[in-house]
């Protein structure tokens, strides 16, 4: 019997953790007892998106650790304990808290630290680096008594940090030593365009500033003195002047480090000691360090393969980057500075739209060597494929960056890519892997993402992923039939547009003009829903009646025994004692089973169809109205008790929930919609699991969209922060109308967004930036629905001809004698089969 070996990982950052995930998913997981040290008090979190901590994300949101990960995989994690020494003769690690652990294999994933230039005064109070959540918390505390902030360093991280200061409402300066921003990635023209855009956002950019001294300020806390004689007063200083590998544990333990720092590794990521590997930002390979996560993940995969005895090599990494800095698209590929021998350069600059693009190509104009994109990075996917796969450029390479001419198609068809082409760099997914997944039946963007993980990291490749999908489907001759059913050769969205443009008001009119046959339960319900969300007619109008499923058609929810449940609306989960008593009395009178639902209201079960109007008459008399629990429509707006009563509440969540539920009640949509409002970040209303979630903050309301519970739970995405109520309602109006116009039938908001090309960013551009010029129209449509709201039960009760249907038999006042109940825990429930046989036998006897 072979004894398990011990594998120790020093560092639980993004790369260290990704390594653990790769390891436990591999077959060699069973060979090891795994132990990891984490110097910080919390396990791995997403440092790349650290600035989102100030735009509403919590430490929890940023965490990279799935619940129970360490326990489930039997990994022992030492949180808040730092490994300080390695005894490589005896294969032992010692920690700051005095632990000594023997290892068979050791992985160093110690990462990097922020470099602070040795400027006099750099250790003054309120001078920070930008690296950990603790750094951010300290910054936030200091910002409470501050007005001005300065970031030293105008690289990627520095600009992210500047956004963080801006989010803390400080007047913000970026101070760059060199003549331009992001000097590693951008050329002078691109950097200038970026600087203009950053300044337009209210962040001042100072270049060629060599900070020499920091002393007491006169107006503000500090005064920074620059080499050119100028000065700047500020309250907070953030140093973001680059990172350095954390190699001290290797240095003191006799493991080889590079001349400029970093733990030296070979192609298998092994250090000078054969039992010790190093991965991520602490490692130096071929004289290079890598300050991005993707190469670190790649090193981790190499180590797992090497441990498994497979041939694998780390052979460097593409350092191309694409990101959104303060809302500005920036991308850099390969040799952006045209340093290569004989390189030729094409530049496109559009001052009016603030777009800058630059191509660097080989002397024979055949290969792409590098590129810079500022203001519009849509070409990034195509360009990086040309670069990574050394694909021959078109005859006029500038066509790749010039605005499309009418009859020319630019861009690279996915067909031109080899199977080995990497589509997603975050998770190293190749075109070949995507093609296999498509072949295996993953025919939607959502299914592909779930199966391959492509486009689930930075999301930069989602457009490319979609085009590979479309191309593969077309090629395999697989006809993607998006027809809603055999009666209409249209998608739901097509039908919506037909109804909207041609002002069609009934199913019969639509099927006569645009369909065939008699329809079916699929198209009838879909069209019923579209007509209701666009025209908002009374759904039991004669021409609409046959479009409603049994729930809508009797305005109640059919249960397994053919009886119905009844749900009166309780906006925001609020109910008066008199209301509650009335419900109790009605339930008692009609012998209904009562249960409190997850949507904070009371559900009454066991009503026969003939009892529904009687029950509703009494509910309406007691002041209730329909809860629309039967419709694909807005269900409830759940809320916590909020600032009115709660000691911790920041704002009045119940008040907002009531207002929102009253605004959107009755709204018909492709699927049910749920809202919640929480009065503070404790999130008692669980708003992040709803289609629309709202959380109160000191600065206003944070809006989350497209979450859901159910079979496949999904957290909502943070959509906008610190909104006032009017803006919040505007955004919700637009999101919901856009959803009801463009979603498929029975598609929840989560799946709708995941399948949308461009995903969350695209939805934001439509709803916040009004990219399609639709916003006014979307709001008008929602206002129409709000203005034409009616309680369907009130309308029905008032119309004797509609009540005729609410009886079991058309020709008799008898009721269905097959409905039988028994008692359980003091209430009724449907009799099961055995009980029914017994009861019927007793009756007959």
């Amino acid at each position, binding site marked *: 019997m072979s004894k398990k070996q011990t594998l120790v990982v020093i560092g639980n950052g993004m790369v260290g953790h990704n390594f653990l995930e790769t390891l436990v998913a591999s077959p060699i997981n069973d060979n090891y007892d795994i132990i990891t040290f984490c110097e910080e008090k919390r396990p791995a979190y997403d440092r790349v998106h650290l600035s989102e901590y100030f735009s509403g994300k919590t430490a929890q949101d940023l965490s990279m650790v799935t619940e129970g990960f360490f326990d489930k995989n039997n990994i022992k994690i030492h949180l808040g304990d730092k490994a300080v020494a390695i005894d490589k003769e005896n294969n032992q690690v010692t920690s700051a808290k005095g632990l000594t652990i023997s290892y068979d294999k050791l992985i160093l994933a110690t990462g990097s630290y922020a470099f602070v230039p040795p400027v006099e005064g750099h250790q003054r109070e309120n001078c920070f680096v930008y690296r950990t959540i603790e750094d951010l918390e300290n910054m936030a505390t200091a910002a409470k008594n501050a007005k001005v902030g300065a970031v030293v360093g105008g690289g990627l991280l520095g600009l992210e940090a500047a956004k963080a200061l801006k989010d803390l409402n400080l007047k913000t300066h970026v101070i760059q030593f060199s003549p331009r921003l992001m000097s590693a990635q951008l050329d002078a023209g691109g950097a200038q365009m970026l600087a203009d855009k950053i300044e337009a956002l209210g962040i001042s950019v100072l270049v060629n500033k060599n900070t020499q001294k920091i002393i007491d300020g006169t107006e503000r806390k500090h005064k920074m003195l620059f080499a050119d004689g100028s000065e700047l007063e500020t309250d907070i200083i953030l140093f973001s002047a680059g990172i350095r590998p954390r190699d001290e544990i290797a240095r003191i333990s006799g493991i080889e480090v590079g001349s400029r720092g970093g733990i030296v590794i070979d192609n298998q990521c092994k250090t000078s000691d054969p039992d010790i590997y190093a991965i991520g930002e602490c490692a130096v390979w071929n004289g290079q360090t890598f300050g991005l996560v993707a190469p670190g993940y790649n090193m981790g995969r190499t180590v797992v393969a090497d441990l498994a005895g497979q041939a694998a090599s780390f052979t460097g990494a593409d350092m191309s980057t694409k990101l959104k800095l303060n809302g500005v698209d920036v991308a850099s590929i390969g040799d952006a500075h045209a340093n290569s021998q004989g390189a030729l350069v094409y530049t496109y600059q559009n001052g009016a739209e603030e777009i800058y693009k630059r191509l660097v190509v080989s002397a024979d104009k055949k290969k792409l060597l590098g590129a810079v994109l500022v203001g519009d990075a849509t070409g990034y996917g195509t360009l990086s494929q040309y670069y990574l796969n050394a694909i021959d450029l078109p005859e006029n390479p500038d066509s790749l960056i010039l605005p499309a001419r009418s009859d020319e198609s630019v861009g690279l068809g996915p067909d031109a890519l080899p199977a080995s082409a990497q589509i997603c760099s975050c998770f190293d997914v190749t075109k070949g892997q995507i093609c296999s997944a498509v072949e295996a039946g993953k025919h939607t963007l959502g299914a592909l993402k779930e199966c391959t993980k492509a486009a689930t990291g930075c999301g930069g490749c989602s457009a490319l992923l979609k085009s590979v999908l479309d191309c593969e489907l077309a090629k395999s001759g697989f006809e993607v039939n998006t027809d809603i059913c*055999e*009666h209409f050769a249209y998608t739901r969205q097509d039908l919506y547009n037909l109804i909207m443009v041609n002002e069609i008001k009934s199913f*019969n009119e639509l099927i006569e003009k645009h369909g065939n*046959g*008699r*329809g*079916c*339960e699929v*198209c*009838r*319900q879909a069209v019923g829903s579209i007509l209701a969300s666009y025209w908002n007619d009374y759904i039991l109008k*004669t021409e609409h*009646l*046959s479009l409603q*499923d*049994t729930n809508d*058609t*009797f305005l109640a929810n*059919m249960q*397994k*025994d*053919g009886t119905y449940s009844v749900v009166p609306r309780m906006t925001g989960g609020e109910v008066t004692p008199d209301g509650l008593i009335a419900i109790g009395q009605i339930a008692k009178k009609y012998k209904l089973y009562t249960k409190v639902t997850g949507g904070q209201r009371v559900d009454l079960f066991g009503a026969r169809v003939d009892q529904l109007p009687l029950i509703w008459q009494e509910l309406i008399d007691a002041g209730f109205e329909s809860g629309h629990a039967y419709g694909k429509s807005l269900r409830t707006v759940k809320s916590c008790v909020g600032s009115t009563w709660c000691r911790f509440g920041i704002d009045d969540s119940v008040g907002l929930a009531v207002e929102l539920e009253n605004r959107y009640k009755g709204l018909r949509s492709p699927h049910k919609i749920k809202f919640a409002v929480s009065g503070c970040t404790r999130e008692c209303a669980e708003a992040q699991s709803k289609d629309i979630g709202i959380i109160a903050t000191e600065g206003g309301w944070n809006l989350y969209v497209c979450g859901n519970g159910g079979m496949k739970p999904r957290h909502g995405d943070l959509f906008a922060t610190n909104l006032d109520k009017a803006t919040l309602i505007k955004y919700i109006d637009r999101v919901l109308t856009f959803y009801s116009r463009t979603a498929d039938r029975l598609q929840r908001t989560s799946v709708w967004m995941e399948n949308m090309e461009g995903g969350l960013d695209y939805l934001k551009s439509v709803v916040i930036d009004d990219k399609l010029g639709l916003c006014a129209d979307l709001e008008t449509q929602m206002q129409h629905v709000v203005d034409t709201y009616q309680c369907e039960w009130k309308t029905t009760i008032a119309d004797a001809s509609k009540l*005729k*249907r609410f009886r*079991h*038999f*058309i*020709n*008799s006042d*008898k009721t*269905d004698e*097959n*409905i039988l109940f028994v008692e359980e825990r003091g209430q009724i429930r449907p009799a099961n*089969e055995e009980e029914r046989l017994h009861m019927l036998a007793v009756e007959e006897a």
Partner: protein
Amino acid sequence: MSHWIDICSVEDLQPDSGVCALVEDKQVAIFYMPKENALYALNNYDPFGKVHVLSRGLLGDIKGEPMVASPLYKQHFSLLTGICIEDASVAVDVYAIRIENKRVEVSLGK
């Protein structure tokens, strides 16, 4: 021969939808498609859900065959034969139905 039983007037029917009638001791679902002037009568019992609810299903056709979709679990039953389109071994009884002098009549006859 057939024994026709008077049910209701044509106006009592729901266009493109169903109602349930009590015929002797049987529950009969009656469906009405005014465009084709077609009437269908099926037993109201849903053999999958084991309750009497078929009259509350949605109407339409599958490849031209008129059908009702069960309101509970959405199986389709042919209005012509009563046979379940998803599982031909299951069927519900079909009855004769006609309009005489604007009155709807059903025959349970053998």
